[in-house]
């Protein structure tokens, strides 16, 4: 749980605080209002779920938002279930970022005028700074509407916060809070989008969808367990229906990066990045107590950090800025400092999605602020590991001592909710993403998809003892000769029950 510190003044005067002190919950931009005015046919793509609050948060929020957009009467809306199905049926698998080139191609595939993309980073109950206060639902997300003609964003918003409630009820259910945020976001979009028009009842994208419907004949679709018909298109970065190649291959997960050998210092830093780990990034300091300029010394640890992140595109870190509680404006200062570090990392080539800045203010000071030397120790950058770098030797856990002899523990019940991680060996990104999407569509909880750098010939399944039956089921489903080979492990890390390593035998 994230602890949100509330200033004492806000407790004394909650109303004033809401108006004057609390940061704005929402920031919105819009461009090209004349284009946005004409858009009535929108597809909501499956929202990405960032962080680990609620595994289905992106899907859940995208559903709520689609409902509100339909209710507004301003748009005809393809919801994320349908856009996900159509993309899967076309053999298209979206990478984490939808850029302009992808958006342009999606318009042709989905038959809509604009696509709404987004991610949900917080979705759950959070404890406030005072233990006797009940936790409250918190929703954080970003979303933007991309024009499929130009690929340009027409509107976008970031929302972070707890929606205020009607009668001061301290804890509305999570879903009510999320519904209110969805309404707020939808109103912000429709408010930016001009007049309401008469909309036909029939979906505007139906001409495109019909051909997909045809593939859903009984026994028809080419997903796991069913005979696979010739795909309408290979899962490559080519726009369906056009012969134009898309310049940026955002449809498929990136190929494994060419790894550089890490220096001992870099290796030491990397080993600190354990799952859910948190540590101080040593050597990163700022020139003045109140400024955001980094000292020259800071460039060494930051280039070490950048080297690791470039080698491990699957790793995600939160860079937390901490200042001394006596510093003026601790929260904005710490935020700016975290952003300065992130900007420096990005200038070294690190992808924006890998590093997230967060200002922690002075709430977690390490030392009392008696003397300047102690204050200086409180001013620091901490790293919180959101997703750790996947070790080259995958998975980095020790097998059960005698595999096959006696399972570590005989499960009392057969688990039905295995959390599955899919890893792509060298050159198998597209197959891994495809497999993961098929498993997801079939109801399996796929938590992570990542690349491992080395080549593997055989597709493997690692499982923890309680999930043996699930693993067997998966082994039979994966279309490789003889089924995927299974190995039992004591543990596969937090939040993972089964790991599938996709090898070159999966075509």
């Amino acid at each position, binding site marked *: 749980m994230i602890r949100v510190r509330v200033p004492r003044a806000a407790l004394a005067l909650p109303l004033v605080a809401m108006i004057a002190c609390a940061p704005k919950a929402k920031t919105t931009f819009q461009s090209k209002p004349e284009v946005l005015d004409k858009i009535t046919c929108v597809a909501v793509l499956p929202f990405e779920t960032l962080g680990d609050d609620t595994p289905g948060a992106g899907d859940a929020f995208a559903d709520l938002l689609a409902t*509100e957009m339909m209710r507004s009467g301003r748009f005809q809306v393809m919801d994320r279930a349908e856009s996900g199905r159509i993309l899967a049926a076309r053999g298209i698998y979206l990478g984490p970022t939808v850029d302009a080139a992808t958006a342009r191609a999606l318009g042709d595939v989905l038959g809509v005028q604009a696509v709404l993309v987004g991610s949900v980073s917080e979705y759950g109950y959070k404890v406030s700074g005072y233990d006797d206060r009940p936790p409250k639902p918190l929703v954080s997300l970003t979303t933007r509407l991309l024009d499929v003609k130009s690929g340009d964003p027409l509107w976008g918003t970031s929302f972070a916060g707890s929606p205020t409630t009607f009668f001061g009820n301290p804890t509305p259910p999570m879903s009510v809070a999320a519904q209110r945020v969805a309404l707020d976001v939808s109103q912000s979009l429709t408010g930016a989008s001009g007049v309401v028009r008469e909309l036909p009842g029939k979906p505007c994208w139906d001409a495109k969808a019909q051909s997909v419907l045809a593939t859903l004949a009984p026994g028809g679709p080419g997903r796991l367990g069913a005979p696979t018909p010739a795909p309408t298109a290979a899962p490559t970065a080519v726009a369906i229906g056009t012969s134009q190649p898309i310049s940026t291959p955002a449809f498929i997960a990136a190929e494994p990066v060419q790894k550089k050998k890490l220096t001992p210092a870099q290796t030491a830093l990397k080993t600190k990045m354990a799952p859910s780990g948190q540590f101080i990034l040593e050597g990163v300091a700022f020139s003045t107590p109140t400024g955001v300029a980094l000292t020259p010394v800071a460039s060494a640890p930051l280039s070490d950090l950048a080297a690791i992140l470039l080698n491990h595109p699957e790793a995600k870190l939160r860079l937390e800025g901490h200042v001394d509680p006596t510093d003026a404006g601790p929260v904005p200062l710490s935020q700016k400092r975290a952003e300065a570090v992130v900007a420096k990392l990005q200038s070294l080539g690190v992808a924006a999605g890998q590093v997230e800045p967060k200002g922690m203010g002075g709430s977690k000071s390490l030392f009392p602020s008696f003397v300047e030397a102690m204050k200086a120790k409180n001013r620091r950058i901490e790293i919180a590991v959101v997703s750790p770098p996947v070790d080259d030797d995958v998975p980095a856990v020790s097998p059960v001592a005698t595999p096959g002899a006696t399972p570590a523990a005989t499960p009392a019940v057969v688990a039905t909710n295995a959390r599955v991680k899919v890893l792509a060996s060298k050159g198998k990104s597209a197959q891994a993403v495809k497999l993961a999407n098929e498993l997801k569509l079939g109801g399996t909880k796929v938590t992570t998809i990542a690349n491992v750098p080395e080549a593997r010939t055989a597709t493997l399944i690692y499982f923890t003892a309680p999930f043996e039956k699930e693993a067997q089921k998966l082994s039979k489903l994966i279309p490789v000769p003889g089924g995927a080979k299974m190995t039992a492990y004591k543990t596969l890390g937090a939040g993972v029950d089964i790991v599938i390593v996709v090898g070159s035998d999966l075509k």
Partner: protein
Amino acid sequence: MPIRDVAMTGESTVIVRWMGFAAAVAALAGCASVHSSEYRASGEGLASVKSTAVLPLENLTAMPDAGRVCADVLSTELAARNLSVVDRGKSESSLSSVDLVPGATVDRLTAMRLGEILGVDTVLYGSVSEARDASPGTGTTKATVGLSLRLVDVKTGAHLLAGSYTASSGNDSITAAARAAAAEVSKAVGK
């Protein structure tokens, strides 16, 4: 590309459709309250619905089988409102004909296809995003269910109904909360 930064003020228009103030009071005593937001197609569509099938909802929660529990109570509530509802066993087993398991994502196209197979004029499908016994740490004992539902016309492919429903039940039963949400949906669809 010029991007105009527009600081939108948070409009706090909240659509709370309490089942009457009396129900809200009664909720404290152990009954259920529903917070819903609905799109209903204009025209005759909803009024002319004669038959429907309820597919297992996609389960986005940690509770096993939440999607099936909700589909069960939705079926019952709709059948109690003079609609012809396909038996839940039959609608669930129809999933296998398009190679899905209960709890998987169901979309409009899949629902239309299954509607044809089951011989109904509408299909109700969607997702369950919250199913919990009580809000953690609050000391309240309200079970909560959050649903996103869609009713699709099998022939035209148009959505007749799309709604978000959150229901809380005072007696700590997730099923009771699901029933409250289902009752709200069936008011829109039923006769």
